[in-house]
């Protein structure tokens, strides 16, 4: 009996831990798929503007922001009602964005305009535009709030923006066609993926000196198809996960030694990835197979594939 109660309690506890919800932007369907983390089932589909890509949560995690590039705005979805609210301005063709830890400013990459737009959310207006390289895409912010990073695809550069003065403080040449930039939890490192070089470069955030270049190999997959796209750095600083695009794999990297530990076979053309709040699961948006893979990071296996809309691109996990 006691065992049974314990088991029941345990089941309840693990269920509670999984009460997360995953939101996936479907680039070709103009929708956001909603996945229940507990059951790994698709539970809703929310229509949004045209060509949704970048996706993120508000500071209070009550609202979803979706960059809809073809409508030149950021859609806002109330997560309780799953209804659209008034959209936010974004500048032209927004792709990825990042919320500053102040909870107030959204830094948006404008793909067609070579700009990073700084949006004041409560005031609903663009307060500044920072000129960067051609086709800005990757956006990251240091958790200490001091700086914002951006990458430009055609210029192949990492741009570092002072979050206070909103000035460009440095430009660093990185691997060809950089896609994603993320700052480590301790704000000490900047990780940048290069799609065409198929590598991830790690920089010291203070000096911008390169610390490591991580290359990936998948037996039987030609070099050109091993491309690095989405990056997720674990909150405890132990692991990094890298989506390898048309290689259909996600690599798990030791974030201290920069060694590739293993790769997971997921869906086709895996683009962006997102960790669960407890860091135990990784969700992947697989653009060409129109599904989401769920990786159990503790047991090191892909446990589920969930069909979503067409061309899933970005995803975010809400607790």
């Amino acid at each position, binding site marked *: 009996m006691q065992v049974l109660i314990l088991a029941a309690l345990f089941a309840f506890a693990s269920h509670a831990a999984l009460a997360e919800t995953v939101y996936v932007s479907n680039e070709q369907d103009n929708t956001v798929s909603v996945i229940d983390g507990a059951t790994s089932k698709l539970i809703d589909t929310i229509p949004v503007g045209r060509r949704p890509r970048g996706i993120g949560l508000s500071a209070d995690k009550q609202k979803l922001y979706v960059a809809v590039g073809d409508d030149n705005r950021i859609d806002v979805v109330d997560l309780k009602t799953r209804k659209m609210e008034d959209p936010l301005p974004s500048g032209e063709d927004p792709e990825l964005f990042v919320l500053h830890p102040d909870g107030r400013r959204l830094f948006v990459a404008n*793909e*067609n305009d*070579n700009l990073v737009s700084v949006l004041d959310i409560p005031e609903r207006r663009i307060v500044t535009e920072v000129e960067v*390289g*051609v*086709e800005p895409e990757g956006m990251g912010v240091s958790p200490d709030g001091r700086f914002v990073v951006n990458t*430009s*695809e*055609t*210029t*192949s*550069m990492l741009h570092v923006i002072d979050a206070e003065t909103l000035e460009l403080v440095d*430009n660093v*040449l990185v691997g*060809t*066609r950089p896609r994603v930039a993320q700052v480590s939890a301790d704000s000490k490192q900047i990780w940048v993926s290069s*799609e*065409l*070089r198929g590598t991830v470069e790690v920089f010291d955030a203070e000096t911008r000196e390169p610390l490591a270049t991580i290359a990936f190999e998948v037996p039987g997959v*030609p*070099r*050109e*198809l091993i491309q690095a796209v989405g990056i997720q750095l674990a909150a405890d600083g132990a692991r990094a996960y890298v989506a390898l695009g*048309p290689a259909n794999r996600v690599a798990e990297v030791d974030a201290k030694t920069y060694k590739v530990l293993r790769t997971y076979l997921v869906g086709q053309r895996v683009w962006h990835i997102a960790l669960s709040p407890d860091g135990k699961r990784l969700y992947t948006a697989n653009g060409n197979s129109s599904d989401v893979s769920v990786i159990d990071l503790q047991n090191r296996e892909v446990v589920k594939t969930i069909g979503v809309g067409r061309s899933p691109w970005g995803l975010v996990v809400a607790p």
Partner: protein
Amino acid sequence: MRALLVLLSLLLAVPALADDTAIRVAIITQERDPILPVSPLDREIPDEGLSGARLGVADNATTGKFTKQRFVLVERTISKDGNPADMVRALAAEGIRFVVTDLDAPALLAAGSDKKAHEMLIINARAPDDELRNESCRANVLHTVPSRAMLADALAQYLMAKRWRRWFLVTGSRPGDKLLAEAYRRAAKRFGAQIVAEKDWTFKPGHARTDTGHVTLQSEIPVLTQVADHDVLVIADEANEFGDYLPGRTALPRPVAGTHGLITAAWSAVSEQWGATQLQARFDKLAGRRMGAVDYAAWAAVRAIGEAAIRSRSSDPSAIMAYLRGPDFILSGFKGQGQSFRPWDGQMRQPILIAGPRLLVSVSPQAGYLHRGSELDTLGTDREESRCRF
């Protein structure tokens, strides 16, 4: 007054000084007879290629701005009676070592063979001739434009993926058409297709523009296309003299592919994937039209030089050339994969688009065509087949 003069001369001196460190790239084009487009929807394009090179320089400048490297485009045209070798010598005298050519094969050969050209790097953005990559290859010549063999192989892979194995080949009268037909025959053999019928197009060009042009075509084309049953009609008509007349008029209801219908090209106005939307938008802003295949090859040539200069962190032509030919070079060409130069013949390996008139249909290499090195090398002349000896 004197102070003013000093100031003036200083002001004047600044650009002159900057020019010494600028990386200068010349684009040479040749005077050509104007071609009357077959379709009233097409316009004559006087800046084909040139606008691609201009965008290449603009794109280079965006990274150069941060790396403090400057790129300058020098635009030259060879007149009909002009001598390509003279042009090369004139450019060499100006100290230019990077040349992008929008030239046909004979002019390119004449330019690339001059003694002065040996210390230059020439990138061919126009001539698809396989001979330039084989018997007539040159150590100082690279090619961003795909060879005819690459285009034919790309089509063959797609047609085989569709199981359209039986081809009816219709060839135009120009020398280039004959060479392309030869490339189709080679591709058919290589990938297991069968050419079940062949015809030459012998009618005079241009008759659809007369008042009742469609009437003659409607009677001529069924006669021409009454051949053994086939899955697809493959056209070799590089100069666009007749290919557009065939769809919708053939004796049997069969799709048309090759230079018309379902076309193969390094680039197409319909390309929009892999960030191509942004490249098209930049090009449109600059040239007022969509980007074509020759524009793309010229853009890729100038961008390749820029990329090598930026990556090698050098403005020294020798260092840039070495990097371009080295194993680390890749160009982001908006086709989903890194593009680099084949060491055995200087050809840029790249995906080839299979494009319809309104939308992209597919991209070769097709899934399943494997290669021990790069799958891109399943298109065109592979290392073992190459007859190029530098």
